[in-house]
């Protein structure tokens, strides 16, 4: 393990980075000593990913500096980052499926050659001991196609060592590993550390952070807020740093809890492995139910099951008193459910089409000249568009403008507005205010409350713990595919949601 006196391999000083108007990083610093295991934690959107992307040369900081071995450097491209001794292992591992283990290990690494031909035999002799050291049991000549995620991780680590990396950045390494595989990875990390290779361990799993890391840096809202050494490290201290000083609970949400209303949706043990593992809840008419939790907790996947975009492995649902098992989104829409999907640009909008087109799409039955005359009434289409634009104050010069030219907030209002005229019995909103400015956010919240007041059942998924207590009648928190806590009224608070998100089950 790294001695305190060793000079830092990497120093990141006060970097900031904005995308458009959104500041992903404000003032973030980090230093990594050779051979240490350094944890990086923070809530969703705290800036961890941007930090990694900057180190990897995928984004460039607006301010601040990066030093390696005391020299200020500019990490312009991923190639430069590699040359400087940094390797990055992401969750979705990059592989060439048809190639062998050895070929994948050597991807992008300069290879020994003889007479102008790559000398695979010599390379194999060099790589073999490294592969065995990191625990690759498969033959180097095996095709990577059949290998497990764990083995793919080992191949990536092996590639980093072959490149003589001095820092390996691991992004949520255990997210798709079994407990036994994770244990094996921890041994390898300890071994790497002992041989002088530093590891930057980025994870939501605080138990692993506590167990593995020599030091831990905490990011919150784009700034470094705390750094712990092993001595001062407790779970409570970490959670407090992640959430922020304000742990005061009892923010008063809306008092109105529609307990007596008719149950619109009842979900029983809904399961689709690996992301959704037995979820049960009820949603009532006129209720706004929030689902909080970390990104990857299985919330969007749950929404897709309810909406018929995916099929469950097991479990059942009833909708408005009848058994409900939608095979397609079409069936869900027909039953009276609407979805505002998580990724509005790729899943929600037709960017090159007009605002009127985008708003009309789920209301086509209202826009035709007659039940048996499928001709579109342009007048009806534009008046529907104008009405919706007014209702949600969608700002654009004309309903004929392509929706891709609108701002993020206005685009989101278009996706929501599409459903208003249809007035489904239930509306699912997945991250309704992500990337949306404050004004639009308030408007979207007001609209959601109005819809509920008019009797619609609303399910809101949000990764921002701030958002749910104000907006919802009741909040469920999901972690690792299950509901770990339910809260309502005064018990809803930002801190309670964050704490529950990290998997502390309530009793």
């Amino acid at each position, binding site marked *: 393990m790294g001695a305190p006196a060793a000079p830092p391999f990497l120093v990141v000083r006060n970097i900031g980075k904005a*995308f*458009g108007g*959104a500041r*992903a990083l404000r003032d973030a610093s980090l230093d990594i000593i050779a051979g240490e295991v350094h944890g990086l934690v923070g809530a*969703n*959107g705290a800036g*961890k*990913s*941007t930090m*990694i*992307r900057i180190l990897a040369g*995928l*984004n*460039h900081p607006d301010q601040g500096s990066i030093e390696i071995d005391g020299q200020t450097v500019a990490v312009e491209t991923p190639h430069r980052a590699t040359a400087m001794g940094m390797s990055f292992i*992401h*969750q*979705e591992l990059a592989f060439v499926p048809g190639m062998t283990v050895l070929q994948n290990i050597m991807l992008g690494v300069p290879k020994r050659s003889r007479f102008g031909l790559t000398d695979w035999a010599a390379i194999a002799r060099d790589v073999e001991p490294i592969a065995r050291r990191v625990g690759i049991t498969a033959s180097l000549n095996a095709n990577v196609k059949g290998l497990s995620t764990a083995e793919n991780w080992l191949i990536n680590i092996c590639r980093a060592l072959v490149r003589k990396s001095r820092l390996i950045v691991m*992004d*949520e390494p255990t997210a798709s590993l079994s407990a036994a595989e994770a244990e094996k990875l921890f041994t390898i990390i300890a071994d790497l550390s002992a041989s002088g290779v530093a590891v930057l361990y*980025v*994870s*939501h799993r605080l138990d692993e952070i506590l167990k593995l890391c020599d030091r831990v840096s905490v990011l919150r809202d784009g700034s470094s807020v705390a750094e712990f050494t092993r001595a001062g490290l407790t779970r409570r201290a970490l959670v407090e740093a992640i959430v922020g000083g304000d742990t005061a609970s009892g923010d008063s949400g809306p008092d109105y809890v529609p307990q007596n209303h008719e149950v619109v949706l009842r979900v029983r043990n809904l399961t689709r492995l690996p992301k959704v593992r037995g979820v049960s809840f009820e949603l009532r008419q006129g209720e706004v139910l929030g689902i909080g939790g970390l*990104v*990857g907790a299985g919330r969007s996947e749950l929404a897709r099951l309810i*909406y018929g*975009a995916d099929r469950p492995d097991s479990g059942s649902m009833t909708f408005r008193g009848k058994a409900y098992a939608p095979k*397609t*989104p*079409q069936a*869900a*829409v*027909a039953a009276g459910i609407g*979805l505002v*999907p998580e990724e509005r*640009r*790729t*899943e*929600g*909008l*037709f*960017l*090159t*089409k007009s605002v009127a*087109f985008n708003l*009309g*799409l*789920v209301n*086509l*039955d209202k*826009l*035709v000249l007659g039940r048996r005359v*499928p*001709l*579109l009434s*342009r007048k009806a289409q534009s008046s529907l568009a104008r009405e919706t634009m007014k209702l949600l104050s969608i700002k654009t010069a004309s309903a004929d403008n*392509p929706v*891709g030219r609108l701002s993020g907030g206005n685009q989101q209002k278009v996706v929501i507005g*599409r459903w208003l005229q249809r007035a489904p019995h239930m509306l699912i909103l997945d991250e309704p205010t*992500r*990337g949306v400015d404050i004004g639009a956010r308030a408007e979207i919240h007001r609209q959601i409350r109005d819809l509920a007041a008019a009797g619609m059942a609303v399910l809101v998924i949000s990764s921002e713990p701030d958002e749910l207590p104000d907006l919802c009648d009741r909040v469920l928190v999901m972690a690792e595919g299950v509901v770990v806590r339910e809260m309502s009224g005064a018990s809803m608070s930002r801190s309670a949601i964050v704490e529950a998100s990290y998997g502390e089950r309530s009793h």
Partner: protein
Amino acid sequence: MASEAIDREDDQMSDATYNRRLTPRAKAGLGLFARYATILGLLAMIIAFSILSPKAFSTLGNFTNVLNQASLAMIIAGGLTLAVVVGELDLSIGFAASLHGILVTGFIVHDKLPIPLAIAIVLALGALIGLVNGFIVTKMKVNSVIATLGVGTIITGIAFAYSAGVPIVAGVPEAFLQLSLGRWLFGIPNNIVVMVLVLGILWVLVERTSIGQEIQAVGGNPAAARLAGINVDRIKTLGFVISGMCAALTGMLLASRLGSGTTSAADSYLLTAFAAVFLGSATLRDGEFHVLGTLVGALIIAFGFNGLNIFGAPTFSQYVFQGAILIIAVGLSSLGRSLAES
């Protein structure tokens, strides 16, 4: 998960691409150019040919002739437009049109079927081929290029099996020839009338009906269309069916014009149709396929060929022209699209 969060925090694009963006003004100018380049090109070509050869080119007779000749290509290109609007390619249309030409003459000459019945059967077969294409693409999840190339090759095999490679010439009734050669409406060639009707119907279908909105949605963003409750597979299959029916129509009109059912007679319509459709997508809209655009695209090709003929350009230059126009068309189309998306 953190890697999902990467996309989240940076849902625009990486810095490298960001910096290469054009200024809004340059973008608007380029966009304007891309949208009107094809129409300007068409006008410039007509004016140039008129000046160079006023006696042969710029006569009503020649214009009618060009339009008459081009009508068959326009019909098959109109059908192809529907396939590409739903986001797929249909490479089977040329081969299918050849088969349909053989079948319709075979039904009339060998089986002595009444002409209207023969036409109805062949139209239904055209729809059936579209259904098969749609099934292979949407249910078996085969890439449409491969699926329709395979189906097209099988169709050629069927055409050879049916005709044994021998053109059906003898005994084609005059009434069938008159389908394409006649001028039943105010002296306007029938081909032109049929073409205007077909393109008119297709235009209304895509632009002015509720199903047309779904068709455009599926082509624009299939994932979003699915989540908006649209049956994406059915709409895509519909695109193939219409494409198949238009191919049948073109194949039959060609057989009528040639007075025979000949293997491979209509194969070359495939390239013409693609060039027309892609030129059309660069017309008036930013890289989006649409029926009116296809009409403009087909006109450019038709007048281009006509001009080359009038000036006695050698045969090889026609191939060069067709290949070049296809590349230019696709280039303009993707330029338009990239401008619209940035």
